């Protein structure tokens, strides 16, 4: 397998295959075409030499991250509309406000990616509901100390994601 493929060679050799793979995951040709383009754009943006002993495994990895981001947006959108459906109509935000809020939710959901479910839960109870540690401990059936540790861990995790690049 050649290892010095440029993104261009990659594109001509594997674009068709990648599109088909994405289509099988997304079940939708238009989204698949978008994400296939995005995959190659990501590679171009990186600019540096990439490891290409197994170009398709590599492309699939990049594409997989984009598929997950795409799904995350879809799921957030759907869950958000469901949550709003339980509210009285008067208190539902405008369409523009919804877009802004969804972006905020997406940014945070991405940051919290990779946290253990309990850590994530404790953190969200504090951040969304403003609950005290004691109340979170009771709701989750864990000790206050554990709650403190979870929340501190989650914040540190987010800190690293947010500021890592500036180090």
């Amino acid at each position, binding site marked *: 397998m050649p*290892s010095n493929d440029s993104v261009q060679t990659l594109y001509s050799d594997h674009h068709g295959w990648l599109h088909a793979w994405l289509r099988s*995951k997304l079940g939708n040709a238009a989204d698949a075409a978008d994400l296939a383009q995005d995959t190659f754009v*990501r590679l171009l943006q990186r600019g540096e030499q990439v*490891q290409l*002993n*197994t170009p*398709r*495994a*590599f492309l699939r*990895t*990049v594409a997989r*991250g984009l*598929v*997950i*981001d795409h*799904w*995350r947006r879809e*799921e*957030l959108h*759907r*869950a*958000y509309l*469901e*949550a*709003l459906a339980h*509210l009285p109509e008067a*208190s*539902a*935000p405008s369409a523009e*406000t919804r877009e802004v*809020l969804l972006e*905020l*939710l997406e940014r*945070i*959901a*991405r*940051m*919290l*990616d*990779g*946290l253990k479910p309990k850590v*994530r839960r404790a953190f*969200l*109870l504090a*951040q*969304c*509901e*403003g609950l*005290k*540690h004691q109340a979170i401990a009771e709701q989750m059936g864990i000790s206050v100390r554990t709650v403190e540790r979870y929340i*501190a861990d989650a*914040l*540190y995790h*987010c*800190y690293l*994601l*947010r*500021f890592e690049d*500036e*180090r």
Partner: protein
Amino acid sequence: MTAAAPSAKAVKQAIQWMLRLRESGNSPVLLQQCEQWRSARHEHELAWQRVVHLHQDLDLRAIPGAGVALQTLETSQRRLHRRQALKLLGCAAMAGSATWLAKDLDTVSGWTADYATATGERRSFRLPDGSLMQLNTHSAVDLAFDDQQRLLRLQHGELMLTCSDAPNQARPLLVQTQDALLEGFDGRFVVRQARDCTQVSVSHGHVAIHRPGNGQVQWIASGQHWRLDTQGAQRLESVAMDPAAWSEGLIVTRDMRLRDFLEQVSRYRHGYLGCSDEIADLRLSGVFRLEAPEQLLQLLPQTLPVRLRQRTRWWIRVEQVA
């Protein structure tokens, strides 16, 4: 990294202060103590500012509607995981996407599962294709098995792979290290990711080295040992230590330098283990049990003119007998 970035310790302290203040409803006493901490060092203040900003960015209480933010995030996360597990990976274990995308982009990946051992621990794992993977002390392996290939990435440490002898394995069995991509065909081999190189030893069967850069393949035959680094691949004529013995809980040495031996032993325990220069080249042959590295060290003065100087449990230096 610039000098301006606060240390991990300062950041964690800032987080503690922030949480304590929040819990106490900004108690004046705590506020004052926090002020003192902040002004004690510039680093503290910087860490504090960053943590406060981060905390504001992550504040979701402003999202209108009781429970809407929490419900949206929790429900969508659950569904997203299920979708990933079902459609993307065929496997329940899953790391985050954005994070690993950024971290793993420069290597072939798509990692679906992690296997790891702690210092001093050794474990065996049966892989999805029936191959047996044994991990030595302090090792970590990521797996990406799909319909194209069976790919293992050795992050650090050492693995022994006994290839499945199931027929018709159309997918290549690959081990990626920092230095090379290896392909196993049959038999059993050991791969170790050392600091500056990869070591491969084949007990039996065949392994191919796919070298990054030239696309050529180098075959390793049964009984051979190779060292791979950025310079290239080099066959080692002899090795002072049986590379596979750890899988049976042993270190087996033949005329091994004492310093090299201690370096091996220190992989299995925490703390410092070293020796003085005068005795570094003493030679050691024998069979040592890995189960209790501390006891193993106690044996040294019985066979070599050395003594152990132990300051704490975690600091041991082997020295010449006076």
